[in-house]
């Protein structure tokens, strides 16, 4: 897993409204500029924060990015996902 690239994509999303708008409209196009594999792209597109952090992404970065992209008022959903073990 290219963990650094995943974290870079997350941080870029948290840091820029323009990036978030582009990701929201064209997620595959936005993520194409990062060296990510298909599984990594899927985790980001689905905001599978549990799997992202299980695989080593920083939880603080995961939450900050979630707040920026999904919304700070969606913390209960973030916590539900964090406390739901991956199915496989």
């Amino acid at each position, binding site marked *: 897993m290219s963990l650094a690239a995943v974290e*870079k994509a997350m941080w870029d999303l*948290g840091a820029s409204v323009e990036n978030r708008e582009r990701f929201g409209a064209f997620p595959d196009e936005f993520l194409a500029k990062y060296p990510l594999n298909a599984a990594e792209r899927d985790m980001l597109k689905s905001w599978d924060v549990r799997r992202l*952090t299980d695989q080593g992404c920083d939880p*603080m970065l995961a939450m900050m990015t979630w707040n920026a992209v999904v919304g*700070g008022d969606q913390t209960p959903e973030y916590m539900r996902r*964090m406390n739901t073990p991956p199915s496989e």
Partner: protein
Amino acid sequence: MHLGQIVAGFLLPHDPLMASMPDAPPPEKVANCREAFARISNRLHELEIDTVIVIGDDHYTLHGPSCIPRYMIGVGDVEGPVEQWLGIERRVVPNNSPLAEHIMRYGFEHGVDWTVSKTLEFDHSIGVPVEYVVKPVPGIRTIPIYINSGFAPFISSRRAYEVGRNVGLAVAEWDGNERIAVLGTGGISHWVGMAKMGTVNEVWDRHVIEFVERGDAASLIALTDEEIIREAGNGGLEIKNWIFAMGVLGPLVGEVIAYEAVPEWICGCGFMELKAA
């Protein structure tokens, strides 16, 4: 207490939810925390403090994975906080640039290769204490210091203490007549973005407080990062900010101002003053 021009030291939270969700906890806990902030602010006023050195940490709000400074000092323009959702108005905060640059130069000459910010935009770790403790006292200047206690690779607790000591020695050689206070911010237990977010380990928090009460920096430094994360979450590592402040101040003991376990603010909130034994 005589440590060069440093005349006071305090340890306190920088929990952003105190600003963004001020009334979420039970009223008595809110009142106790607000009173603790006010008490520290009053002490700054009583002691005629004109410069504070505030120790905070990045939360992936200032720097991304492309550059992670281990320790950084703001020597020039200071402005913030950067997070609009805090509800704290962004503003320019006056720095004491001559003293900040002296600390920087002293570090360069004595084994501390600071990352230097000439135009620092700070986050809640500086913004919350400045808003609630410093801002109410007119005329105080703020020297911001960031150490990397928020996300990996973490500064070691030993190094945090050593760099703090270096700052204390730098101030002792400063020929200005400022009256300086040190604010170590953050902690105590909290799990930021982790599955246990909202948990507070009051027992562990009170162990940390006991170490500070005894002035026992060595026992705090001896706690491994793995142990801290297990018992107090990734946010518990912010006790490195406290350790840094203890390094600046040298051998002192701690006096509890207040402690509240506040799950609504996802944090154990500890307020202490460091004093001569």
